[in-house]
């Protein structure tokens, strides 16, 4: 797994829209890096999130 330190902020592109926390699982795809940012609250008080995503990254095999 890559840490955010490996990524440049210019590599992460905003996914349009704002999301609730429980919607994240429907958004996430394998082999991509994500940055989740606070984006205020919905009118009903639910916290909203903005999602930034990287292009697909190759799977790096773990060292034995």
């Amino acid at each position, binding site marked *: 797994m890559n840490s955010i330190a490996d990524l440049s902020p210019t590599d992460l592109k905003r996914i349009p829209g704002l999301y609730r926390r429980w919607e994240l699982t429907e958004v996430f795809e394998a082999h991509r890096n994500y940055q989740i940012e606070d984006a205020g609250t919905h009118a009903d008080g639910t916290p909203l999130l*903005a999602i930034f995503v990287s292009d697909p990254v190759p799977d790096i095999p773990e060292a034995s």
Partner: protein
Amino acid sequence: MSFAWHEIRDQIMHSASTLSFQRSFDAIRREQGPVLGFRDPAALLDALHQKAGSPDQKNLILAALARAAHSDGHTGDCALTLMLLALWPGLDAIRRRCIWRKVGTGDEITADILGRTTEAIRGLDLQRVNWIAATILRNVERDILRAHQREAGRQSLRSETEPDEVAADDGSADAAVTEAQLLRDLRLLVGADAILVIRVAVEGFSQAEAGAELGLSEAAARKRYQRATQRLRDALQKIH
């Protein structure tokens, strides 16, 4: 390398959707009050592009962006990018009018518009300018047309052949002749409102903009434009 106009906009939009751009945008929000209420660039551009918004409020936002665009580094670049996107509909209209006037090739016009707009934003004197968008767009278009006229004048002076023998390389002479003929023909049909019709129907200015140029209120320009187009329709029906 040649880029289509819409591809340039797509490219700018793409750069405005990255995390680094959002970071710069957050820095502008912290420093510029009128921008504080917008969480991301998309929300800001939506507010600026919607027709229903208050012109005064939009102008305050643009003034804040222009102030930020004067700073160096990522924040200044971010503000400049947002200004370009905010002004894009106006720049698009300028581009269409420049192409119709045959000011240059599509690529030349594109480069000229983007270069001059960037220069105008970076060099804007906020103490002297009241209406940010109108001033920038008007100055950019005026400067492009003046530069074109100067260049056309130089070309005609340098030419060794008689002007009548020249087959208008860049098409500007053709355009001038066509415009003059069109104006003459229209004057026969709609009289003094011929210029108003050309500005609106051919060159793409709004009725309010064309009216302002001719010293008319928006209502008067609208009424005269409607009357002129009705006369043109009547004339066309007689032909058919």
